[in-house]
């Protein structure tokens, strides 16, 4: 192959490499996912979130007001969010995953202003079969996003623990709070 053809071949290969890279980047997730243990703080852009506990039941009260009764179960996940950075994040997505299914939280989460924290409940309505292995997911999007932080927090509910919990609390009352902000000391 003479020198002129070799140069053309390199240019074509470079173009193919760029197309391949673009395609690969378009297909890959744009989040940087971190698994966080129950009770441990997970880091997002300007905040941390800690999952404290979870409860289940059939009737839901929010700050002592009756919300509703579920044909399946309510799962309330108690979390503490502290904003220790310089600004409050505005674009959080909170959800849940279990058995390959995704769940949306009933209400948007409150993210406090800088220097404050809030402890509140995130409520899901799920099938009893999805209690075991339920994982809370929190994604913090930046305005121009690339590899935004996403946390996966396994509630640590084993099949045995789920069976026991359902036997004990399936028809219980779940009392949740939307929380009040307090200074993060």
């Amino acid at each position, binding site marked *: 192959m003479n020198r002129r053809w070799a140069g053309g071949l390199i240019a074509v290969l470079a173009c193919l490499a760029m197309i391949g890279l673009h395609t690969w980047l378009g297909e890959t997730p744009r989040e940087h996912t971190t698994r966080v243990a129950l009770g441990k703080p997970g880091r997002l852009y300007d905040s941390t979130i800690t999952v404290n506990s979870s409860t289940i039941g059939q009737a839901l009260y929010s700050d002592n007001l009756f919300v509703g009764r579920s044909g399946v179960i309510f799962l309330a996940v108690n979390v503490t969010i502290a904003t220790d950075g310089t600004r*409050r994040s505005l674009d959080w997505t909170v959800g849940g995953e279990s058995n390959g299914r995704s769940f949306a939280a009933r209400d948007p989460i409150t993210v406090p202003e800088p220097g*404050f924290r809030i402890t509140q409940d995130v409520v899901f309505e799920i099938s009893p079969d999805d209690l075991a292995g339920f994982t809370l997911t929190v994604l913090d999007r930046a305005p121009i996003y690339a590899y935004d932080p996403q946390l996966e927090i396994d509630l640590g509910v084993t099949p045995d623990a789920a069976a026991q919990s359902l036997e004990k609390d399936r028809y219980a009352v779940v009392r949740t709070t939307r929380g009040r*902000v307090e200074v993060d000391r």
Partner: protein
Amino acid sequence: MNARTRQWMVAGAVFLAVLAVTVGWVGYLHARSTPHWQQTAPGAWADPLPEGGMPMRVASLTTTPMLITDRGDQPAPAGALWAIAVIDYRPPAEGSYCALILLAADGRRWSGVSPLDYSGKRALDSGCGSPAGADGTARGELIYLIPEDGAGSLAGLAGVVSAYRGTAPHPVLTPAR
């Protein structure tokens, strides 16, 4: 210069060119996504809102543990303070609206508290919805809840900066007192 040396030099030049473009692009993106604040003179008029068209000034910025309304005193949570900014503005004829953030010198920024977050009514209207007086200006107030450790480093009020911002500086309204 032999052929091998020339090939290495060409490869090096290409690498440096790619590196320069990458560094320049990343630097430009960083500059666009990092707001550049420009402090005004104390009490000076400026146009801080992204859409423009409404000059404003901060007449005063005070902090207090107790918010006084016609329904009594509203205490801030333990360790927190209310920051009350009194603003003068020249509303355009078509009406006005403002959402300003409170900036601290360390970069922290707080959004305003809604009047629904406290009980009662205050002497000044909240926000910038009042009609102009005879001199073309109106007065309102914006209230913030801040931690006590932020009270000593408040820089002033600035417009909410959109995500895809330019590289131009954004005015920070410095309180007159």
